[in-house]
């Protein structure tokens, strides 16, 4: 009986998340078909469980069930407290998932996870080239990696202003971080939440967004260092949309050269409906 309840609970949880669209706050929608198919399996399992339950109550059927009938009699949950423990453990994600509001990851989690940008290493042959000769795309056309990156670089260089939104943030940022020299003075618009660390300069903040690969457990923060005009004051977790020109800076805490955006225009915005950025292949 309890099993049927748990199965109905899981079915309902998955259906509810899909119907309300909240599922995008948990997983990358690219993989939503996986959890969608889980709904059907859960419905199926629930029906089967109900069927077994009714069948088991039928004394006639039970008499037929001899020791070699192949039914699983070695259920490990043989005491009532073990059964209720299993029930409470399984019911926990169902209740908290349905009744507690979905939280958005913010600067608090950034402080726990730390900032990691996949920037190139100092002294890397590729990056050195770019600094000395900004336009050397032909130099690294042979290697697989640079071929793909070249495509990314060319795509971005064609654009007059690069707008980093939830769909292209992860991929395009990677390009910008790998080839910052190619994009100096480029106009960039980016939306994200403000994050400031103690050791940062007065007018510098990070504008970040959580990027999701599969589910938010594997999310990381992605974003850009901003050089704000003197008069701008921001608080952590405040959402901003800024535009400016790209430059590079040697950022001491990372011991790396990273892109920095010299902000020319900025405005406060409300937290977007979809606060996360998703990785697209």
């Amino acid at each position: 009986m309890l099993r049927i309840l748990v199965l109905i609970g899981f079915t309902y949880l998955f259906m509810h998340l899909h119907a309300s669209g909240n599922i995008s706050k948990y997983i990358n929608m690219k993989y939503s078909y996986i959890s969608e198919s889980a709904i059907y399996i859960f419905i199926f399992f629930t029906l089967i469980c109900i069927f077994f339950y009714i069948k088991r109550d039928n004394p006639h059927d039970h008499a037929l069930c001899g020791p070699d009938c192949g039914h699983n009699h070695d259920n490990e949950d043989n005491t009532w407290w073990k059964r209720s423990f299993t029930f409470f453990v399984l019911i926990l994600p169902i209740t908290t998932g349905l009744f507690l509001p979905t939280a958005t990851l913010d600067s608090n989690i950034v402080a726990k996870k730390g900032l990691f940008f996949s920037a190139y290493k100092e002294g890397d042959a590729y990056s050195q080239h770019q600094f000395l000769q900004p336009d050397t795309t032909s130099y690294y056309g042979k290697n697989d990696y640079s071929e793909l990156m070249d495509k990314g670089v060319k795509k971005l260089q064609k654009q007059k202003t690069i707008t980093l939104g939830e769909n292209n943030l992860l991929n395009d940022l990677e390009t910008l971080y790998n080839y910052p020299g190619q994009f100096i003075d480029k106009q960039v618009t980016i939306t994200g939440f403000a994050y400031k660390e103690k050791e940062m300069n007065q007018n510098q903040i990070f504008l970040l967004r959580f990027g999701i690969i599969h589910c938010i457990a594997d999310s990381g923060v992605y974003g850009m260092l901003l050089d704000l005009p003197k008069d701008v004051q921001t608080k952590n977790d405040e959402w901003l949309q800024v535009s400016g020109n790209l430059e590079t800076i040697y950022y001491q805490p990372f011991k790396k050269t990273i892109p920095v955006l010299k902000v020319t225009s900025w405005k406060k915005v409300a937290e977007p409906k979809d606060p996360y950025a998703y990785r697209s292949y």
Partner: protein
Amino acid sequence: MTTQTLLQMNTIFISIVIEALPFILMGVIISGIIQIFVSDEMIAKFIPKNTFLSILLASFLGSIIPACECGIVPITRRLILKGVPLPAAIAFMMTGPIINPIVLFSTFLAFGNSWSMVFYRGGLALIVSMIVGFVLKLAIKEPPLKNNHHKPVHYHSIKERISAMLEHSINEFFSVSKYLVIGSLLAAIVQTYVKTSTLVTIGNGPVSSHLVMMGLSYVLSLCSQADAFVAASFRSSFSTSSLLAFLVFGPMLDIKNTFMLLSTFKSKFVLLLCTIITITVLAVTLVF
């Protein structure tokens, strides 16, 4: 502030559960199919007597069964009950989540479309599972399963078979998923309350950086299809070999998967297995 953190923890917890449950469902269904439709005699004929060959075969078998590290535990249990030798079954469990087309492809993408990481990851996983398999063969004499009374049964009709298969699948779902829930909860707590960023700053020496990356992959409990992207973000601060430690160790062992193992194996065996895997991965990636 604190309620917000609690809600964030819950959100991460739910997200891990939601991500893993479909794979568990798939795992228990495959396990049910094996239980009913694959006989012990078929397994005995199929698996080579030679330990080396049986591990090799089992490792590649893992690549055609699409199961992540949680879904694969019930399948492994079923295979052991069906008479698959322990080294081969454990090798299947360890390499299945790594040497599998989806995981290798995501590794290829995460490291900027390069094949070298894919080969290193797959190759090292195979080497580790070989070593662990042979050590287990020498060290383990009695079956390590918790519930190992298994009697071959015979079914008369196809209807009976399917009904028994479904019952097995559902029973297994309930015995395994509670461990998934506990494991996910712990992983979510670690992600929200433990400052993993300080962990990363410790790892500078050769041994310590490997240990840090392995510890990180253990506590983060990422799905093996996503972990390559996370590893790639550490590319600039960690050596390739320590990233490989992360990529090989994580799918074999992590918080939620340890709990899944506890659902199936005796705790003494789980402890031994964890120790052997940890030492082997560390040694193999350090030599690399």
